[in-house]
């Protein structure tokens, strides 16, 4: 369960990035965070990971209230997949990259090895285990980045633009994978077709505030609301086509 109440976040120069943000996410729900550029999507994810601490308000994840002293506990419960997988893969091979988190959690190496094998199998990327992360394709890097988070078995996973840098086939593979991944998911994205297909609910941000929230199907098909949010209808609804 995620509970965000009246959260304000400001950048160092004093500019407000998030203003009075409040929402709740139930266990197992998949929620899309959408909005135009600069609406505050990535900042919200950063605040939920304790990278940016709110100046006001409260963030509570699985009963743990965010504060400087318990950021570690929060991070044990929450995983984040960054927009650019290159930022997430910094070790010299995929195995060590995936093992990075569990080792920091103090897990035994034998257990880590088993978990990595299971995770890679679930993602269908077993062959990448000893490859240099920098030599992978965009799609492979994305899957390896997801593996680095999945292996830690977080209860909540935050995705920042998960379909960026992906070709249509890799995007489709990722969507199917996210459908099968049964944890609480928050997906910040511009890919409205994906949001429509994956999310139970969407929260629309505008100028650092929650503009509106509701069922993904209802909100994303409401042309007036979408235009008022500086967005447009998902491609599949514009063209009266099935989701891409």
């Amino acid at each position, binding site marked *: 369960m995620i509970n965000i109440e009246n959260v304000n976040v400001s950048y160092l120069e004093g500019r407000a990035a998030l203003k009075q943000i409040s929402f709740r996410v139930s266990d197992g729900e998949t929620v899309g965070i959408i909005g135009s550029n600069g609406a505050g999507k990535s900042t919200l994810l*950063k605040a939920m990971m304790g*990278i940016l601490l709110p100046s006001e308000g409260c963030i509570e994840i699985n009963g743990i209230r965010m504060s400087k002293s318990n950021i570690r506990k929060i*991070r044990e419960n929450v*995983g984040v997949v960054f927009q650019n997988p290159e930022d997430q893969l*910094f070790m010299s091979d995929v195995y060590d990259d995936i093992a990075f988190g569990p080792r*920091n959690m103090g897990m035994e190496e034998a257990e880590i090895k088993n978990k990595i094998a299971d995770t890679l199998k679930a993602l269908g990327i077993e062959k990448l285990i000893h490859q*240099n*992360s920098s030599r992978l394709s965009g799609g492979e890097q994305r899957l390896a980045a997801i593996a680095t*988070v999945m292996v830690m078995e977080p209860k909540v996973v935050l995705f920042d633009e998960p379909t960026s840098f992906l070709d249509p086939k890799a995007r489709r593979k990722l969507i199917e994978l996210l459908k099968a991944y049964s944890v609480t998911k928050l997906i910040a994205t511009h890919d409205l077709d994906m949001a429509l297909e994956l999310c139970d609910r969407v929260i629309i941000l505008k100028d650092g505030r929650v503009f509106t929230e509701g069922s993904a199907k209802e909100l994303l098909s409401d042309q007036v609301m979408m235009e008022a949010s500086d967005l447009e209808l998902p491609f599949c609804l514009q063209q009266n086509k099935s989701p891409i």
Partner: protein
Amino acid sequence: MASIQKSFQQIAALEELTHKHTPLHRMNAAVKLMITFIYIIIVVSFRPMELDGLLFFACFPVFLMIIGEIPLKPLMLRCMIALPFALFAGISNLFLDRTVYTLVEGVPITGGMVTFSSLLLKTVLTVMAVLLYMATTKMNDMIYALHSIHVPSLIMIQMMMTYRYIGVLMDEAMRMHHAYLLRAPKEKGIKLKDMGTFLGQLILRSIDRAERIYHAMQCRGFEGRIHYSAKKPIGAGGWLVIFMIGFLMIMVRVLLPGEMIGRIFIR
């Protein structure tokens, strides 16, 4: 910038060589590291006038190149980078020591020439030994080799991050360079007046990227120390190989003084 691209290709070329499956590639990385270290110590221990003894030790990299199926060209290209430093350090010897050391076909060879050549040869041999180690050992195995000989974690983190992000930084620099040239098609490179902005932007982008990487590390529990899996011990077989090769090198160094080796070559 073309040279940056070329350097990047050279790094990648050396890394490609680590994917071969020769006995040298399969050897424990820590064992290779120890042997390389012994070799470098022995090569450096030669006195400046013992050029002939050094020539004998040139056989070692040649032998490794053969069993490791490593071509000479990529190693020489990388080796060239170190040579100017040795050239500058030793060139004064040519002028300062003009005493005739020996005559070859009536041509006087001065002491300065011998010591200068000795310095160059030492540089080539030691750099070659390191390059051969790099060309036959994957980065990950190198890190674990350092881990097994108790190198501090901080040094390993620096090495790994530098290696990982040289490529990313060069990629960024090349992208910026392409973007520049596309808007300045008549220019061959970046104008001097734009160089400050270019480098400034590159630094800002690098800082930005470094910050994102740090956040990604923090999100997975990083608290200033990277944990590696258990050390890969060298093992009895490994120590035996180190001892045998080390012993052989020391024997050659001690028992075959320069004059004797010189005689072998002259015959």
